[in-house]
């Protein structure tokens, strides 16, 4: 019943990805263990090569911090994988564990949280 953060933005187009992660980390610090749902273009945040440097804050490296902060409820919207033309293999190397959700499960997830923030 805590907070669900829905990640719908590409990593570097605007500050949404970073700003959402900042909220996730502070909620974790307050022991509110937020859930994260990656949806639509937000899945692009998961495809970054953590070795590749960027002039911007590196989203890929922040993902590595999830286990440290006990952020463990990570979900991926299954329908978005096709929509974003993503090769499922590329999601195997993620440094975090996640669950794939179909549309009914996404709806259920949303109903089971007290607050929802979309970024």
């Amino acid at each position, binding site marked *: 019943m*805590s907070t669900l953060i829905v990640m719908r933005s590409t990593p570097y187009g605007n500050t949404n990805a970073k*700003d959402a992660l900042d*909220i996730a980390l*502070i909620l974790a610090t307050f022991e*509110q263990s937020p859930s994260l749902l990656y949806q639509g273009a937000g899945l692009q945040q998961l495809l970054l090569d953590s070795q590749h440097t960027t002039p911007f804050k590196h989203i890929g490296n922040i993902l590595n911090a999830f286990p440290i902060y006990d952020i463990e409820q990570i979900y991926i919207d299954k329908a978005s994988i096709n929509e974003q033309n993503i090769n499922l293999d590329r999601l195997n190397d993620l440094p975090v564990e996640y669950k794939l959700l179909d549309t009914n499960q996404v709806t259920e997830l949303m109903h089971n949280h007290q*607050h929802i*923030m979309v*970024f």
Partner: protein
Amino acid sequence: MPAMNLLNYCIIVRCGPDQQSQALSALEFTKALLAQGHNVERVFFYQQGVLTASRLRTPAQGELNITKLWQKLQVENKLELDVCIAAALHNGIVDKTESERYELGAHNLASGFQLAGLGQLAGATIACDRVVTFGASQ
């Protein structure tokens, strides 16, 4: 006022004054909440929303001054208007303390607003029955 379920709200404003329609809706929704007797724990300005809190804004004649409208509502209702400090620093909104800390030589946070950490938002998600966001996409 009929007997009703009065709740504790947190409003998140993520759009700047340029998203004029969404920005005004956040204000009007907050007004309507107060008019119906609900409690507004805080209004949290995040992302572009922090631009609302600049006292150096001078909208053109005939344009809405959303900063002034929030200030008026704040005074009338002792509202807490929290401006995310990280987003504020990133966008050039500073109070006297931050201005001195970073030796900026000027400050521009409008009166009635205050800088606050993201912890205030985290606290609100615990304390509030409802968190309603305005300006989630642009």
